[in-house]
């Protein structure tokens, strides 16, 4: 049995990718299961999906804590979520990554096999949209040889109808483009993840455990969602405030769905990077054009 964990953001199709692979495996006579980790998280939120493929029946039903393979649809997640968590020694990491960022992944290569591909570009070339999930399947197949490319024709047809062919082309291109780097194996199996501190990124403090709940399921602590830092959802950019142009009208603050705009000690308007989801509304609505959306320095 091979256990694969997908990491992506809400809306990027991680769950669909896992399901497509499961379907193709089943069509080849294998056993497979695919399921998401549930939550109310929406577009942009880091999400994961799980996939098991086996030659015999699968009785496990739980989340995958120690995968053989991880598939990361969005490279920006590496600094936000411990995507390598539990990845078995010598396991494979299939990463969506533009060529110029490949070097930044190399530290991981000491312990893990890296399969890299610019899946977003493959999707743009073939589908015309930055939907990298089917391309990432191509890279997964190249890396793992799990299932034949052709076995995806049917599942793609069922799922995408007239867009099936374009998705198949995207998958095929990524299959050819993907580069495999075997682990250099010099370093012991301490992962670079241990040097990154994720604790302050997703949650400020541990989330409340169900056993500590009040009777009747009452939540006695007002506003405790503030422990959940939605700043990790930003996909395209962050708002930058230009104080010279700002008249301090306060409109941006009234138009932020997250209440993520405040005034700093100098009374300047500024965004709260812990919570801003990067929707861009403040920048669009500022009457003075005093806010611009600028790229994050991820990875």
């Amino acid at each position, binding site marked *: 049995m091979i256990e694969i964990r997908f990491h992506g953001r809400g809306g990027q199709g991680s769950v669909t990718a896992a399901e497509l692979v499961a379907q193709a495996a089943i069509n080849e006579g294998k056993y497979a299961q695919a399921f998401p980790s549930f939550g109310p998280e*929406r*577009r942009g939120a880091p999400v994961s999906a799980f996939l098991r493929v086996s030659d015999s029946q699968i009785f496990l039903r739980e989340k995958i804590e120690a995968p053989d393979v991880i598939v990361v649809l969005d490279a920006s997640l590496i600094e936000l979520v411990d995507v390598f968590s539990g990845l078995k020694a010598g396991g494979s990491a299939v990463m969506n990554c533009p060529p110029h960022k490949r070097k930044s992944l190399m530290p991981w290569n000491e312990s893990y096999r890296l399969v890299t591909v610019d899946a977003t570009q493959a999707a743009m070339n073939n589908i015309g949209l930055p939907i990298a999930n089917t391309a990432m399947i191509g890279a997964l197949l190249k890396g793992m040889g799990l299932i034949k490319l052709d076995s995806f024709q049917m599942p793609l047809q069922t799922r995408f109808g007239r867009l099936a062919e374009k998705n198949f082309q995207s998958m095929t291109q990524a299959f050819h483009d993907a580069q495999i780097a075997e682990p250099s194996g010099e370093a012991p199996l301490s992962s670079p993840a241990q040097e990154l501190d994720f604790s302050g990124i997703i949650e400020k403090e541990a*989330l409340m455990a169900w056993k500590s709940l009040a009777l009747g399921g009452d939540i006695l602590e007002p506003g*405790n969602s503030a*422990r959940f830092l939605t700043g990790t959802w930003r996909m395209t950019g962050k708002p930058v405030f230009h104080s010279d142009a700002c008249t301090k009208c306060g409109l941006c603050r*009234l*138009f932020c769905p997250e209440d993520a705009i405040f005034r700093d000690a100098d009374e300047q308007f500024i965004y709260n990077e812990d919570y801003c989801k990067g929707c861009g509304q403040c920048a669009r609505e500022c009457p003075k054009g005093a806010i611009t959306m600028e790229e994050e320095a991820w990875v």
Partner: protein
Amino acid sequence: MKADKHLEFEKITAKALPEFEALSPGHRACPGCGEMLALRQALKGLGPNTIVVNATGCIEVVSTPFPQTAWNIPWMHVAFENASAVGSGVEAARRALLRKGRLTDADTTIVVVGGDGGTSDIGFQSLSGALERGHNFIYLCFDNEAYMNTGVQRSSATPEFAWTTTCPLGSASSGKTHKKKDLPRIMAAHDIPYVATATPAHPLDLMNKVRKGAAVKGPAFIHIFSPCPTGWRMPAERSIEIAKVAVKSNIYPLYEVIHGEYVVKRNSKNPLPVSEYFKLQGRFKHLTAQDVRTIQDRVDATMDRLLSYARLSDDTKGRP
């Protein structure tokens, strides 16, 4: 006898915006959610002395991923069907406790929150009953024109021709075939003291309408246009813009019905054509020129009707 259109209430101005936030960040709404934004503004308008009863829907789900909650004020989640019944119960119980002297603060505002599905379909009868009984609460309907939390299914508030997952596009279907239910008009027919429409693109107007709703004795119903980037198939940064265009094109007229009398905010003589509204959203991208004409005629007729009501109310200038 002329009704008092100039309700007594303390107005919020741009210079003196309340600092109060009823919702903490960390909620899980989609980036750019117009519904959570409108909710945030409405509650800012009401202040901390507020109790909320919330039907199921995006607001409930994204605000309270149990055991976390974004709410900083008393909040209760109930079923679609009985949100207004529970709101009635909270109000009646408080009245009884006040009468018995076991509560002293009579100024608490009770708010029932529902989506368009929760209000115009599933919770409709309990709402109508509560209005008829005259409970002293505000109902806030956040209308994003579909059942969004479950993945964009049509509701009776989905506009004609709009795409949803249950009125798909194809050879046998080209969007919704039925008209949007006119909920504020039905609510006004209950002869309650206050009905209004509002949008998060007009935050002061929204906050002050909610405050008026709190100031009147008896039920108030506020219908809030709530852009949903996810379900409307538009970029996250457009929620405010789309609401502005909806008002400027008369797709979504802003008006109040105060003790039965209409006060309509009039646009300039040249409203935007409705096509300006449609072109910003993926859910309307299949519309034919004929479809657009059909809606334009309907929008024009609705605006004429509203203005004639306002004339009957004999005061279109006296807008507070």
